[in-house]
């Protein structure tokens, strides 16, 4: 047997390229299968006065219409705090909210019928924006404040102070496969739900509750998703519940696949934030005090807004030691879709706050922003306590930043860009190098657990089931590698099955970048148990000491004998040795007291830094990233190709968020960018022409699976460098004498208006310019 290949391709790669990897909509439909569609409200806030379903029922092919009152169990698909009715009851709280669902014999009939349902709504005043919510005190849950030292005092004593307001837009997940579920009634009213979800356990629970049944009566299965990014953590539930309710009502299989426009108006997105900040520092650029109010548009319900804003607060220090810090998080209730998890989970917004402020500090001092960043990084052994009082023990940023500064040729390029800008009045370049430090673990400690099931079959092939879900991130590939390496098997001897709630129960969502950390450890635990049994069996059977049994790529060495894995397990089976087992893992050492905002919420941190160079058009505001150098910390990579894909994909997704993708609500609270025609994610051309990615060569200090590090989310935040490089280029239009205000996304419009604003300010007397 050969050494396991260092970077096997994604377990489904050959199926993907052949179009032979089925997603839910591709699966054969049962003969009785119905298609479903949703009727949505078109106003942001109002009282539901009448729903006339007769025109829908009159259409040929329509089998059933479902309203809130028809739900046999609990009409709520909220993950934590109730408040997400599957179908609207009497109040409409956002434009796009689901009011009724139709099942029909064809997709066309279902969609046509849904469009004919007459929904009468008595409109009420709507709170659409964060500003409005703050003004009227509309919050989902109480605000939280994290404190270290005394920020007010620190600010008062600081030699210099700056303050500002920053707005960061939200982001649609734009997973290429939209939300979809197929519900298949089974005997005795049981239900099998195939769902494109990151959280099959939650689908199981919510479907059971909606049907008024026990969790034992519902099974949820996920083979793969066509992308998730957090958008299928809680947001898959409504689609699954509606399919299941219609299946219950009709006794037939029901498939609900959302049209893209419906998906984008119905489901939650990344939170947009208003950030009010104050920073105190000295002439050297050392920060002494940081006070920030992070206000998120939570939308119409709590969903995951609490932990999202928590994570924004946990990352409002990013990489910097803050002697005095006050970090407040506000969860605004608005009459818009309920915002949710999205890669980074609030972390990026928190980081943007301090990175932006540091950029302002540097401009105020006339320093290079990199120097201000380096001067404020967390230290080793001192200056290492976060605002939530966790001590950082694995900091590598000072070394990593210096390494990137050198490898990206930052200083020379800074000079070259200045010269270039002096010669080019209509195009400007900008440069920024920013770090990212991302805390790994669910901040809700109990979620940090996972289970797995490993089956060794008598031919020596292995099946693994675990609680995580495959959404493209390569989790199943990595888990297969982990189990293969435990038995020293070839990668293709191990198959990871679909995730099914009847195999591994009570799972957490595949989220928080923790999929491999948690499920990998659980799978390794299961494999280890079997391995130990095999060793015990071998020792006894072949009469050798256990330490003479070794699993190698060439087979199993038993003393001087060599067997194949299949031979060993075959003999073990005959000797009635259990060849399958379960594994479990709970992350150690973590705890957090949310009341006091203190604790050790993170098992470790993932680090990275990026240097981006931007080019802008002074007359149009268009921008482009010319070069990006990324240096990222993945620990000991289990699969470098997959990790590289996460880093590159994360950066580009972050680039889209911060520079291009714009969610635009009209004043009445209707989202008008609800399709790829109006909502523009990056294309291949937006990839920096010169794109260099390197891994930081150091194992994880924490005892993670193979000493690897989580990689799903952190690289997204490397794109902050791109946004601030654009800001740098905008500042160049005023020869860096003034600092521009540049909210995100930095669309051509925002960039041009920022340039115009600089022009206007340049004409003002000096005191009035800031």
């Amino acid at each position, binding site marked *: 047997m050969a050494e396991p290949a260092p970077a096997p391709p994604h377990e489904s790669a050959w199926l993907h390229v052949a179009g032979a990897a089925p997603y839910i909509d591709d699966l054969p439909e049962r003969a009785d299968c119905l298609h479903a569609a949703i009727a949505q409200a078109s106003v942001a806030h109002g009282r539901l006065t009448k729903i006339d379903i007769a025109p829908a029922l009159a259409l040929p092919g329509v089998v059933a219409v479902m309203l809130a009152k028809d739900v046999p169990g609990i009409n709520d698909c909220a993950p934590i705090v109730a408040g997400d009715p599957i179908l609207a009851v009497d109040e409409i709280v956002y434009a796009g909210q689901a009011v009724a669902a139709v099942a029909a014999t064809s997709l066309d009939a279902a969609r046509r019928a849904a469009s004919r349902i007459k929904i009468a709504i008595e409109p009420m005043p709507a709170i659409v924006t964060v500003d409005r919510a703050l003004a009227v005190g509309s919050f989902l849950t109480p605000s939280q404040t994290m404190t270290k030292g005394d920020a007010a005092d620190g600010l008062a004593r600081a030699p210099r102070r700056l303050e500002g307001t920053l707005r960061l837009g939200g982001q649609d997940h734009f997973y290429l496969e939209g939300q979809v579920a197929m519900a298949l009634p089974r005997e005795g009213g049981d239900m099998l739900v195939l769902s494109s979800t990151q959280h099959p356990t939650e689908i199981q629970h919510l479907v059971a509750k909606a049907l008024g049944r026990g969790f034992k009566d519902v099974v949820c299965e996920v083979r793969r998703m066509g992308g998730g990014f957090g958008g299928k953590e809680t947001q898959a539930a409504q689609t699954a519940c509606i399919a299941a309710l219609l299946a219950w009502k009709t006794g037939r299989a029901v498939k609900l696949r959302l049209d893209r426009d419906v998906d984008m108006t119905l489901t939650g997105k990344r939170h947009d934030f208003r950030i009010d900040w104050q920073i105190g520092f000295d002439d050297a650029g050392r920060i002494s005090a940081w006070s920030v109010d992070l206000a998120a548009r939570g939308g119409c319900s709590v969903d995951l807004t609490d932990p999202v804003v928590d994570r924004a607060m946990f990352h409002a220090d990013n990489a910097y030691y803050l002697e005095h810090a006050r970090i407040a998080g506000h969860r605004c209730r608005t009459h818009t879709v309920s915002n949710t998890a999205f890669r980074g989970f609030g972390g990026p917004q928190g980081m943007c706050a301090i990175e932006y402020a540091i950029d302002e500090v540097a401009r105020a001092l006339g320093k290079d922003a990199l120097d201000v960043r380096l001067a404020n990084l967390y230290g080793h052994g001192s200056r290492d306590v976060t605002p939530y009082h966790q001590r950082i023990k694995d900091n590598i940023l000072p070394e990593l930043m210096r390494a990137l500064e050198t490898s990206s040729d930052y200083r020379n390029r800074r000079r070259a860009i200045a010269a270039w800008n002096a010669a080019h009045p209509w195009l400007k370049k900008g440069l920024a190098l920013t770090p990212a430090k991302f805390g790994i673990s669910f901040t809700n400690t109990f979620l940090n657990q996972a289970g797995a099931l490993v089956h060794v079959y008598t031919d020596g092939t292995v099946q693994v089931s675990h609680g995580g879900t495959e959404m493209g991130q390569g989790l199943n590939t990595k888990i297969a590698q982990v189990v293969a390496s435990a038995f020293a098997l070839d990668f293709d001897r191990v198959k990871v099955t679909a995730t099914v709630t009847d195999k591994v129960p009570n799972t957490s969502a595949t989220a928080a970048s923790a999929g491999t950390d948690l499920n990998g450890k659980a799978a390794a635990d299961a494999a280890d148990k079997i391995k130990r049994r095999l060793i015990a069996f071998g020792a006894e059977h072949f009469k050798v000491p256990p330490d003479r049994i070794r699993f190698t790529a060439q087979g199993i060495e038993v003393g001087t004998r060599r067997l194949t894995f299949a031979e060993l397990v075959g003999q073990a089976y005959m000797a009635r040795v259990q060849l399958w087992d379960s594994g479990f893992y709970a992350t150690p050492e973590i705890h957090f007291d949310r009341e006091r905002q203190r604790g050790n919420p993170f098992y470790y941190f993932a680090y990275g830094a990026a240097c981006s160079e931007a080019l802008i058009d002074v007359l149009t505001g268009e921008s482009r990233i010319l070069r990006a150098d990324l240096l990222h910390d993945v620990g000991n990579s289990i699969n470098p190709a997959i990790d590289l894909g996460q880093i590159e994909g994360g950066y580009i997704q972050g680039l889209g968020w911060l520079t291009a993708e714009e969610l635009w609500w009209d004043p009445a609270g209707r989202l008008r960018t609800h399709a790829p025609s109006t909502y523009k994610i990056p294309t291949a*051309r937006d990839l920096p022409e010169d794109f260099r990615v390197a891994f930081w060569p150091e194992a994880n200090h924490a005892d993670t699976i193979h000493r690897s590090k989580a990689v799903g989310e952190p690289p997204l935040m490397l794109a902050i460098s791109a946004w601030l490089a654009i800001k740098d280029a905008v500042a160049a239009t005023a020869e860096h004498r003034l600092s521009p205000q540049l909210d995100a996304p930095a669309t051509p419009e925002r960039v041009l208006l920022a340039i115009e604003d600089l022009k206007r300010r340049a004409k003002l007397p000096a005191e009035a310019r800031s």
Partner: protein
Amino acid sequence: MTRPIRFLLGDAEVSEAAAPPTLTLLRYLRERRGLVGTKEGCAEGDCGACTVAIAEPRDGRLAYKAVNACIHFLPAVDGKQVIPIESLGGDHPLQRAMVAHHGSQCGFCTPGFVMSLFALYHRPGRHDDKAIKDMLAGNLCRCTGYRPILDAARDALGEPRRDRFDEAETATLARLETMRGEPPLDYAAAGGRYVAPRSADQLATVLAAHPEARLVGGATDVGLWVTKEMRELPLLVSTAEVEDMAYVRLAGDRLEIGAAATYAGAVEALSALHVDWRLLLRRLGSEQIRAVGTIGGNIANGSPIGDTMPPLIALGASLMLRKGGTRRSLALEDFYLGYRKTALAPGEFVEAIHLTLPPAHRRFAVHKLAKRFDQDISSVLGAFAFDVESGRVVRARLAFGGMAAVPKRAIAAETALTGQPFERAAIEQAMEALGRDFQPLDDHRASAAYRLTAARNLLLKAWLELQGGDSIRIHGHG
């Protein structure tokens, strides 16, 4: 006489007589053929997940194009070979390269990427990075960040390129020729009808007899009426097979463009007039859109943000309109009566666009502004034609998209320029005057303030570039 739709699906000959005429190729493949490798990501032509290749005879060879199956009506494949991902068999060089370079993560976009690259694979010549990115501008991937896909493309598109489709070319051509021996398609099923005349005369006759018919070119607008608006279109008459309306030709001092010419078909002739046409058309939609979308459709659709109209207006284009045997000529700028309202009479259609070749002293520029460089609808588009003699502007035609309810000339700005030296001061006067020409809209694409500022700056930019020197576009002319 109605007849079934006949085409090749991969290698298999298909005769389809039951599918409704407005059934999309995507749904046909997925729902009626069980070919589920082709995905739906948006059903509006914007994500490329549904991309399939279509091969058809051209000049004795097979010409391949990538199309968005999600908005492609099934009857439009009559007489052609449809190649969905399944036809590649799983071991095509492109597929091997995608695996080798880790080009798929979730895999949902992957078949579409493979099929776009497949169309490029079958296009002769070397394909540099720009060609690859142009080809992929209509394919979205949310996972990979594209680098591995580009690497796979570079790898697989090296020469020599030959696959089993090349091996079978002669046989495929022969089979398609036989199919094309059939009379023009007149297809009726499930209460709908689709007629695809092959000459302008036939088209005129059908339309005169059925003024209620809906014309369709590439269906890059009309397709969405079906997939997004669920509109019923009982009678469609296609221009896609009208051979004598697909020309782009020089006739004396005139460039004549048949209304059924696709963007892809017209790009070379228009670019010969001015390089900005190439840059504009490269950004209009995607390869998939440009392969089928027609200039006639763009004009007739009458969107205020349609891209070809402002430059055509700036160049003084006129339309040849035809109803039955009667033709009339109308200046393009007079064709638009109001928001999406045109001067077309019932039964009348656009037959051709006529463009007098620009005189030597004409300076011309087009600038498109959108949130994204690739495949995005313009927020503002400015097209500028300055006739400059002895340093003076003798005539200026400035036309904008996105600034009013219709594509429109900026008369006040033109007046401000006319007779003035072609210098910055006059340009600034004209920029000022644009505020009198337009009160643009605030919407999700751009605010009124941005539109007006940007429109002014585009005029300045055009002038600056016409002074010579380096390109001042972030993507250059390349």
